[in-house]
């Protein structure tokens, strides 16, 4: 460090025409200069495509082009959307999936977080292990489960038969209900580690004194959980639930690879429907309309996230 400072004192040229960014009055300019590449990039790859997709959703196009259409905007895509049975079914499927995946992942996440928050030898390793599915790529997770849920030789069917829960193998690819739950299982397996990790961090930030005080007051283990742990964790739970919800809304890989949205649309969420319309049927105008509506729903959900954090940090 001293070496550095000595040489820079001696060698630094004072260019009179350059803006001296170390001068206090230019400090902010330097900040904006640093920020510029990121802002420009974001404008190009996030803001512009969003505007373009809204534009496409108002056009009657099959394969979208940039600035090719001089036809006036039309509401046809949205009219089709709200009148179509598929759209409302996709809404219903998405809603069911969000509730089921979110709820189950929260329960598993909380249980595992509480477990690895206990004091025992090898705790660090246990923490590593319970979070491991987070690191498995979604496509890989999906093919593993596709194999485990295989109708002829899958280990899940074998186990269920063996335990006497079912009398004949479940056809996960043909039965609508089974396919829906198969998708949910993969999502839960991929999604719960986020809950575990975040809730564990939340648990560790609860002051030990609160538990001690509750104990002195004669609270049972259950009461301590209910009146100390749960209220302290509530904000983290809320945030993680919203993050998981947005993830289920966005997800493409799991459903596309496992069921392709089928059978008969039983696993077609809004996200899958957007893709299907645009890239299977090449009706990009209609696809964009589905996507724009999905985006509005997600924006609405995210608002809850923003306001929660705004109230928490300030």
């Amino acid at each position, binding site marked *: 460090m001293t070496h550095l400072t000595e040489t820079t004192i001696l060698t630094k040229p004072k260019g009179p025409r350059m803006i001296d960014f*170390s001068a206090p009055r230019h400090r902010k300019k330097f900040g904006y200069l640093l920020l510029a590449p*990121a802002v420009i990039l974001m404008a190009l790859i996030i803001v512009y495509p969003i505007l373009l997709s809204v534009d496409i959703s108002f056009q009657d196009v099959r394969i979208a082009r940039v600035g090719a259409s001089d036809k006036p905007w039309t509401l046809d895509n949205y009219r089709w959307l709200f009148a179509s049975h598929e759209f409302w079914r996709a809404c219903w499927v998405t809603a069911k999936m969000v509730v089921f995946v979110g709820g189950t992942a929260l329960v598993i996440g909380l249980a595992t977080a509480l477990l690895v928050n206990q004091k025992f030898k090898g705790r660090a390793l246990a923490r590593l292990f319970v979070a491991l599915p987070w690191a498995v790529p979604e496509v890989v997770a999906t*093919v593993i489960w596709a194999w485990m849920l295989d109708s002829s030789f899958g280990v899940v069917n074998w186990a269920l038969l063996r335990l006497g829960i079912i009398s004949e193998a479940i056809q996960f690819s043909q039965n609508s209900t089974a396919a829906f739950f198969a998708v949910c299982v993969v999502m839960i397996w991929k999604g719960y580690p986020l809950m575990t*990790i975040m809730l564990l961090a939340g648990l560790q930030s609860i002051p030990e004194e609160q538990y001690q005080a509750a104990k002195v007051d004669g609270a049972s283990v259950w009461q301590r959980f209910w009146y100390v742990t749960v209220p302290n964790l509530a904000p983290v739970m809320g945030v993680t639930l919203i993050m998981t919800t947005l993830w289920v809304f*966005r997800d493409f890989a799991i459903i596309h690879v496992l069921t392709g949205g089928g059978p008969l649309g039983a696993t077609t969420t*809004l996200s899958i429907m*957007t893709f299907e319309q645009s890239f299977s049927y090449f009706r990009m105008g209609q696809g964009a309309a589905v996507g724009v509506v999905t*985006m509005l729903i997600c924006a609405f959900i995210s608002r809850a996230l923003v306001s929660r954090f705004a109230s928490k940090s300030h």
Partner: protein
Amino acid sequence: MQRSKLGQIGIYTAVIVTVVLLLFPIYWMTITALSPANQLRSFPPVFFPEEPQWGVFSELLATQPFALWLKNTILIAVATMILALSVSILAAYALSRYRLRGGATIGMFILTSKMLPATLLVIPFFAIFKQMGLVGSLWSVVITQSTLIVPFCTWMLKGYFDTIPEELEHAALVDGCSPFATIFRIVLPVAAPGLAATALYAFVISWSDFLFARTFLQTSESQWTLNMGIAALKGEYITDWNVIMAASLMASIPILLVFLVLERFLVGGLASGAEK
């Protein structure tokens, strides 16, 4: 707090049962990859195969363009990492050190990128890339992945820069070091662990992508990524599960290794999208 012996045993039992249940799919992937193909079509399944069949990996390399998929995946991940980091380092530093109005905006971008349905985003990008002749090029995937990775890296790096005391930089500036040189000579070396963690995160996100590659590279098989290859193997009429699981295993190993390094950074990283 002293726990009874019985309580200890209870905890260990619970931990072992939980870990076994939750990690069973990973175990099953490994076992299936190393099982002989005919054994996989037998009921009941074999849980502990006697002789691991290592030949499956050479079979995979011989029958599938696995090496090509791997190469494409690595190229995309490295390019995305470099692009995202070079932009995010500067932006994150600016957000951490200067009270700029842009701070809230970047936070908004992160949230936007999380809530933006990716299947919607690929529609305008398809039109743009079609016009630019980028459909079927690895760059199309690098660019679209950046929509997720740049905001993410910016926010994560800002978090690290916030933890570095500003005094060092003040000293350097007083000594006449230019603000730009200060970032590269003083701040980045100190932030090296954070930089590494962020880079690895970008790598993980890029490696796991399926949608962008599926949309823009599907028709040009020479540009396929690992995830596309694995998905295609699964879709084939005759499914050789041991080969698919071998491919899956090879595709997961880099990420699992990264995860071991990253685990202690996980909370900060995963929470980054939530924290504004």
